[in-house]
């Protein structure tokens, strides 16, 4: 009885598969880094930029493939350069939204060309799908040292600029008046964001890199007002959703209509959206009375 329930929850072989263990550990690493960087991305209103950086991966990977380079350099190169351009072009909120949009559209256009060359001259198909949706089960183990290295670098950079970043994220005018080099901090944060997002795009695909960057952080800052704690909570939520997603994806190999497994990205994205809506509803009900008091004045 208990045994059958156990087997329904964890399909046979879940714990003995090395692919599963690798997926669990890699997604945890990605969730932690995304959660930490994500809190700042959300507070600074850079969700669009965070998503765009993930999408640049398509162009970076197809470009690197075309040039015969390791995909890591393609991801990272396009991410850092385009990130710097977006940051330089967009200083005010609305301007930033538009600049991100134009740069993203341009980079995707170039990506379309690279893919066309890849398929024409190098005869690959399905490349955009793999990069876009990714799969934690199919991570190339040879990429892992690079991923961990740049993830570590992103976190290190985040810690170095932590205090001025927090200050200029909360009130940029005040920070500037106190002598914080807000422009430099902004570019440095964009670089950290680019490194974190590009690495997670390699591991889990562009789609999940956005999901893990924005979702857990947005939920976390609803429950805590302390940045450090928010980063911790976001990482936990990220780990929880990706592990749940991996478990369900593994189980789904036995699910109808076709026994070929549902994509893990579907599960993780759904879990995160669900958690976000729950936190939204909770916040709404909890503050329906209190909210008006704050708005008053």
């Amino acid at each position, binding site marked *: 009885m208990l045994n059958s329930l156990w087997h329904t929850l964890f399909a046979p072989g879940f714990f003995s598969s090395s692919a599963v263990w690798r997926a669990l550990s890699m997604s945890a690493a990605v969730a932690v880094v995304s959660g930490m960087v994500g809190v700042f991305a959300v507070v600074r209103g*850079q*969700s669009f930029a965070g998503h765009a950086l993930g999408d640049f991966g398509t162009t970076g990977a197809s470009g690197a493939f075309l040039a015969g380079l390791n995909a890591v350099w393609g991801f990272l190169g396009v991410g850092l350069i385009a990130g710097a351009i977006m940051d330089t072009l967009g200083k005010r909120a609305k301007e930033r939204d538009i600049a991100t949009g*134009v740069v993203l*559209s341009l980079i995707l256009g170039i990506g*379309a*060309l690279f893919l066309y060359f890849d398929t024409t001259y190098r005869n690959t198909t399905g490349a955009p799908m793999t990069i876009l949706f990714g799969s934690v089960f199919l991570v190339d183990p040879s990429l892992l040292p690079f991923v961990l290295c740049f993830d570590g670098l992103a976190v290190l950079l985040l810690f170095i600029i932590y205090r001025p970043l927090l200050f200029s994220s909360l009130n940029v005018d005040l920070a500037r008046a106190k002598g914080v080099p807000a422009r430099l901090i902004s570019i440095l944060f964009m670089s950290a964001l680019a490194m974190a997002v590009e690495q997670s795009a390699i591991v889990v695909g562009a789609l999940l890199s956005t999901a893990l960057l924005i979702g857990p952080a947005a939920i976390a800052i609803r429950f805590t007002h302390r940045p450090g704690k928010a980063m911790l909570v976001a990482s936990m939520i990220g780990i929880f959703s990706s592990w749940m997603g991996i478990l369900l994806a593994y189980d789904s190999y036995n699910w109808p209509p076709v026994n070929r497994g549902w994509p893990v990205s*579907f599960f993780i*994205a759904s879990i995160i*959206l669900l958690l976000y809506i729950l936190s939204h509803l909770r916040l709404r009900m909890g503050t329906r009375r209190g909210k008006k008091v704050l708005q008053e004045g």
Partner: protein
Amino acid sequence: MWSVWHFLFAPGVFRDPFMLSTWEGASIVAVLAGMIGFFVILRGTAFASHALPKGGFAGAAAAALLGINTLWGLTVFSVSGALAIGWLGRRGRHDVVIALILVFLLGSGALFLNLSDMYAPEIYSLLFGEILGITPAEVRDTAIIGLVSIIILLLVYRPLLYVSVLPESAQARGLSVRRMEMVFLFLVGLTSAVTVPIVGALLTFSLMVAPAAAASYLAKRPGMAMILSVVISLASVWLSILLSFDTGWPVGFFVASLSAFAYFLARFATARRRAIFPKAHRQPAEM
């Protein structure tokens, strides 16, 4: 000279019957996206105009799974995605919600793709566009829904302008800021739904952002900006079709590059003009 002419206007680019549908379809898309784009730029909602066409892609996959017209799947997904963004987002700030709705839509798209048997080239064409695949039936559908969208847009033009520029005043005059926002997102969703099947998600996105962004630097009046946005949008699309026809390269690449080029040109040209003649646009005010 003649060879340049022939390179640009390769034989058959105007006469082939399948090219006729391409010209028609792409022009409708360019006009529609250029007009909506004006409000996308004014309201700073480039992210939504990226997410809705791309998220609608899940609808196409769902339609393929169920064996129904792609347009229906796209309409259901783009429009409900738009409404969900409006529902969950607050106070004009939506970026977190857009990101999450987008990944959810794409995640379900991945699921539908997995369950159905869509070919990679079909997906490629939904994402990046394929100018030669447009059929007259698709053009007809796009023209009808596109026309409806343009009529709605012109109908809400003034109130939408009012709530975008002076939300508090508009509210005091009895307009609902939230309802107008919903109408706007609905229009972006509908536009995405009709344009993605024929030109792909990337092209729709490029045309909703870059031409209007360029126009906002060049024009001084709202009506003028909208017209200029349509002109830039049409010019990029037409030139892109010619170049794509000649080279065989994806049309999405040309549209994205040309419209981005227009944006950079407009932005830096006005920045320079301003640096040389600061405040030359008005007489000295005494205040």
